[in-house]
């Protein structure tokens, strides 16, 4: 068995917010990604997807302090136990991040070339000519037309789609082994979404990049992610191969997510799934199943006893007292379009 590129084991993360609150965000999160594999992480807003990505990267919001227990193994090396200097060393070169909003994730007063090459220039000096040349190569690799001219441009001179390509180029510059893409296309319109996702796919395949693709939109993962981890309330509530999770969901939350998948053909393309109720308040301790208040299968035990791990298939698990049986009525599969 080969070592996965990323292997997260029983990760718990507590965030100390600037206002003094102590928020236990991640609970016993375990997942792994092999080289060249894409793992989709899906969940509602506030489910802890970004905190997971930031914990793996090791960079949290400037004014918050985070404490993690468990293991985050990168090619077998435990990052949670690594020295700060070692972690800093991996930023951009071992692990790279693609941010959500390309309009705000580029510095408006810094030339594209200087931002795209940051993972390199943060380590060693690159002469200006070298910077421009490298940047143009990187931009060409993400299909930015006229890369030499674009390297000298400022972000506002580029469209949203091009900016997200620039964001991807910047992430690839340090030749990382793991790419964390935190909702890389949420801010883009549908047609641009597809090309950006295709681009990520291509680089994943050709570079053997382990990719963590975070999204609200489970439909976006069809044909792109080999496996899916569904997060709820800071926990991975279900995980398994994409077909199994989407066609035979075992966890009631996954089933609800799938029922609310936006249709590309509908008049209003909803990105946020509409499940009645709201996610748990992470500032308060919780016993039992986090989904209990919103679950239509919940019984008394759900509120008091933490759900056990149910094996729905060889590599398919769900944390639930009353998982959906494989032969149970499936979510309206016919409505599932491959999006975008």
């Amino acid at each position, binding site marked *: 068995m080969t070592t996965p590129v990323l292997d997260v084991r029983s990760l718990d993360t507590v965030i100390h917010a600037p206002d003094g609150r102590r928020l236990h965000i991640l609970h016993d999160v375990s997942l792994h990604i092999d080289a060249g594999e894409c793992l989709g992480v899906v969940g509602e807003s506030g489910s802890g997807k970004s905190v997971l990505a930031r914990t793996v*990267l090791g*960079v949290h919001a400037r004014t918050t302090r985070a404490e993690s227990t468990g293991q985050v193994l990168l090619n077998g090396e435990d990052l949670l136990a690594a020295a700060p200097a070692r972690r800093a060393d991996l930023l951009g070169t071992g692990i790279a991040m693609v941010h959500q909003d390309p309009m705000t994730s580029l510095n408006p007063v810094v030339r594209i070339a200087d931002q795209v090459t940051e993972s390199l220039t943060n380590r060693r000096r690159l002469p200006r000519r070298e910077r421009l040349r490298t940047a143009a190569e990187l931009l060409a690799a993400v299909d930015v037309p006229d890369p030499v001219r674009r390297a000298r441009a400022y972000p*506002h001179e580029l469209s949203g789609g091009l900016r997200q390509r620039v964001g991807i180029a910047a992430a690839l510059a340090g030749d990382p082994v793991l790419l964390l893409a935190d909702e890389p296309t949420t801010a883009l319109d549908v047609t641009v979404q597809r090309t950006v996702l295709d681009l990520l796919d291509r680089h994943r395949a050709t570079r053997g990049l382990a990719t963590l693709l975070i999204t609200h939109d489970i439909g976006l993962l069809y044909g792109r992610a080999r496996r899916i981890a569904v997060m709820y309330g800071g926990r991975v509530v279900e995980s398994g191969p994409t077909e199994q999770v989407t066609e035979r969901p075992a966890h009631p939350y996954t089933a609800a997510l799938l029922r609310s998948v936006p249709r590309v053909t509908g008049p209003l393309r909803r990105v946020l799934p509409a499940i009645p109720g709201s996610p748990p308040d992470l500032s308060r301790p919780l016993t039992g199943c986090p989904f209990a208040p919103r679950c239509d299968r919940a019984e008394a035990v759900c509120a008091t006893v933490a759900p056990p791990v149910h094996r729905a298939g060889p590599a398919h698990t769900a944390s639930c007292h009353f998982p959906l049986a494989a032969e149970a009525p499936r979510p309206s599969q016919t409505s599932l379009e491959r999006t975008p």
Partner: protein
Amino acid sequence: MTSPLLGFAARAGRAAAVLLLVAVTALALPHLMPGSPAVAALGVTATPEQITAFEAGLGLDRNVLAATADWIGAALHGDLGHSLANGAAVTTELANRIPVTLELFVAAQLVALAIAVPVALVSAWRPGGAVDRIATAGAFGWLAVPGFVLGLLLIWLTAVQLRILPATGWTPFTEDPVENLRHLVLPALTLGLPEAAVFTRTLRGQLLDTLDRTHIAAARSRGMGTVRLLLRRALRPSSLPLVTLIGIGIGTSLGGSVLVESLFAVPGVGTLAAGAINGRDFPVIQAVMVVCAAGVVLATLTVDLLYRTLDPRIAHGHR
């Protein structure tokens, strides 16, 4: 989006209009002020002939607009008239004093920036941290102290107690650079320290805003160290309000200079203006008014240009 050339022409036109307005007001001053400037200048024993001649010299016997036109015509040939107090050419007087005030202004800005930039950077990086708390308390403390009290305190401490710096007076740079700097320190500190407080608050606020942007998180995710991040990525997009402040400062600094220059007996434009106003030395007052207005106009244009170099979006008309 207007063409840069058109924009420049519009700004130049506005600048000229402002200067003209100031010139007219300056020339109208003797008419507007109570009492006769001739009597004030020549004394109560002046004969009517003397007074008439004097008023003709000031252009008081003519329409203000005509007088302004003449004044501008002469000014364009480098003639701003002669001081009523000592008969010296106003241009010579200004040529001696403008460099002194400019030097003081620049030194004060450097003092303010040298304090404000590092303090604001550290405060904003760790809001609520030790540096931030001390700087905040200190800034409000400074701002509560009037400038002349600060000046007197500095004189008392360095000149009277420690005897390391001259309390007053001035030596031109061309005469003795070291003495010039020694005389510069106290007035520059008196002008610069309160400004440092304002600069720090302004820059800190803007930095806090910038540092919360996603692009800063993105740069950190690529391994950018704190110092580089602050200096190369956060400072520039945060510096626009500071540039504005300094630009405005050029306009308002004359008020401050009058006080500080008087306090330290610095022979700059401020003391010149103060003396001229006391003695109703109209040619000098008029020239100082127009020169100051020109300074403000020039500062505004410079701020505009700086904005463009600091933020490419402005240069491209995106904001």
